[in-house]
């Protein structure tokens, strides 16, 4: 009897307040989904998927021997543990402060845009009518740390890689903001939730496919994915800005690119692939905990967005196997000449659609 009382007291005094605290959107979103906890799982999974897809295309196995039954996925956990426990080497002549704190700030700042992503129609950490703009603005912070890290490494390859990252950013940043403008014009809102509500009948990608293409190409630029894997081109600059990094600091730096891919894939799923549409479910399915229906508010819409984002991520990593790498001058030229023009044309298409709608 005493033991039962103790368990009930423990649940009431410890677990219930803990769950109540964790279920608050401003805690759940940055720390659990789509934040930190899911990010770690996604990084492991997408790295495995990238290597597995590359293996299949090039008629190899990819990761296999550690847990053959599961396709070698535990290999990635082993790699993660190796990064965690490997010795961190600081090169002679490097600026120690930025060299050590740079990756930490880079990883943390890359997580910031995820806090603006809504999990469901009634569940978001930031319910601002500018949430889309806030998430894109937060995405512009991390390259600052990449540049500083490349300088702090005191290495020629790191420095060239950092400069390449800066050049690429100048080529894609305007197109990034311009490629979301067509959706803003179509749905007359800068809020994720309102844009998703506007996509119940037709998804953004159907209404304006050019905008979706422009955003996807910009996403490849921003995340240094093939054919724009220029900053970290291993055959030219070893590993670009992260050449001198080892151990956990390298793990954090590498994780940054994948977090950015994940964040931009989520944004793509929300504004072009209908977000949590088209599945309709009852407004509040049980269990309802602390005012939130777990299946209707969090689980089902969150899962739908996550699956769509995962497909976008898988496609972006698949491109590695089929595309060669552009030169930096070619990438800048494509950014300004083609991508910028494509974004402008997609804006014009949206304006025409809105004008046609008002006439009809």
């Amino acid at each position, binding site marked *: 009897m005493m033991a039962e009382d103790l368990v009930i007291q423990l649940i009431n005094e410890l677990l219930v307040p803990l769950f109540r605290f964790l279920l608050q959107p401003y805690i759940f979103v940055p720390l659990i989904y789509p934040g930190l906890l899911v990010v770690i799982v996604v990084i492991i999974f997408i790295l495995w998927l990238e290597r597995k897809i590359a293996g299949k295309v090039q008629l190899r196995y990819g990761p296999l021997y550690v847990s053959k039954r599961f396709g070698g996925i535990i290999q990635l956990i082993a790699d993660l543990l190796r990064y965690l426990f490997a010795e961190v080497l600081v090169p002679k002549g490097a*600026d120690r402060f*930025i060299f050590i704190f740079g990756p930490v700030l880079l990883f943390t700042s890359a997580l910031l845009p995820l806090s603006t992503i809504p999990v469901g129609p009634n569940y978001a950490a930031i319910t*601002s*009518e*500018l949430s889309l*703009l*806030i998430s*894109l*603005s*937060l995405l*512009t*912070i991390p*390259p*600052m740390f990449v*540049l*500083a890290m*490349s*300088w*702090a490494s005191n290495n020629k390859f790191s*420095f060239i890689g*950092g*400069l390449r990252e*800066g050049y690429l*950013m*100048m080529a894609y*940043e305007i197109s990034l*903001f311009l490629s979301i403008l067509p959706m803003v014009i179509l749905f*007359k809102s*800068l809020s994720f939730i309102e844009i998703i509500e506007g996509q119940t009948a037709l998804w953004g990608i159907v209404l304006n496919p050019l905008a979706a293409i422009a955003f996807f190409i910009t996403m490849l630029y921003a995340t240094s994915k093939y054919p724009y894997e220029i900053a970290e081109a291993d055959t030219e600059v070893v590993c670009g800005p992260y050449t001198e990094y080892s151990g956990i600091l390298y793990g954090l730096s590498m994780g940054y690119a994948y977090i950015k891919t994940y964040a931009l894939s989520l944004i793509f799923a929300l504004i072009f692939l209908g977000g949590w549409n088209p599945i309709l479910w009852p407004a509040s399915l049980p269990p309802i905990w602390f005012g939130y229906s777990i299946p209707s508010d969090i689980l089902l819409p969150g899962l739908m967005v996550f699956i769509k984002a995962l497909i976008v991520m898988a496609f972006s990593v698949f491109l590695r196997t089929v595309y060669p790498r552009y030169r930096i001058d070619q990438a800048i030229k494509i950014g*300004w000449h083609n991508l910028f023009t494509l974004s402008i044309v997609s804006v014009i298409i949206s304006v025409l659609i809105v004008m046609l709608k008002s006439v009809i």
Partner: protein
Amino acid sequence: MNELILLASFSILGIALVVFAASVVGQRSLVYSALSLGLLGMANAGLFALLGYAFVAVFHLAVYIGAAVIFILFSVTMFREIPDVEVSTKILTVITVPLIALILIYIYLPYLNATFKSQYFIYKEISLLFVTRYWFPLVITGLALVTTLIEGITLARMEVEEDV
């Protein structure tokens, strides 16, 4: 509780703002100064957001950090040898700091006990106001920006032609 969190956020961001501002002018390394400028911008954007001016905060992040600070950092990292430009400004500092302090005290003293509330705007209404009431300045600004864009593209293309 909310008031306490707000006060703590304001205090942390305020202190960060002063520390990074001092760091911008106090650092000997230009890269550290540029990085401090970026962090100063982030703290500033945070303060704007807390005051309710989310739109200003967003543009502060995108334009000030995403464009200006990155460009500065991009430029200063290219200097292998940082030029030593130490000019003795002690006398100037002794004169200007008390003067600025006195001016700020004169401006803000009447508001010492005043209470301010965060402002929240409906941005759609503001944009509607721009389009209906202030449409002429909006058109002029738009034209000016388009002219600048065309100038930029023309200059860039001219450079390419010269190279060829």
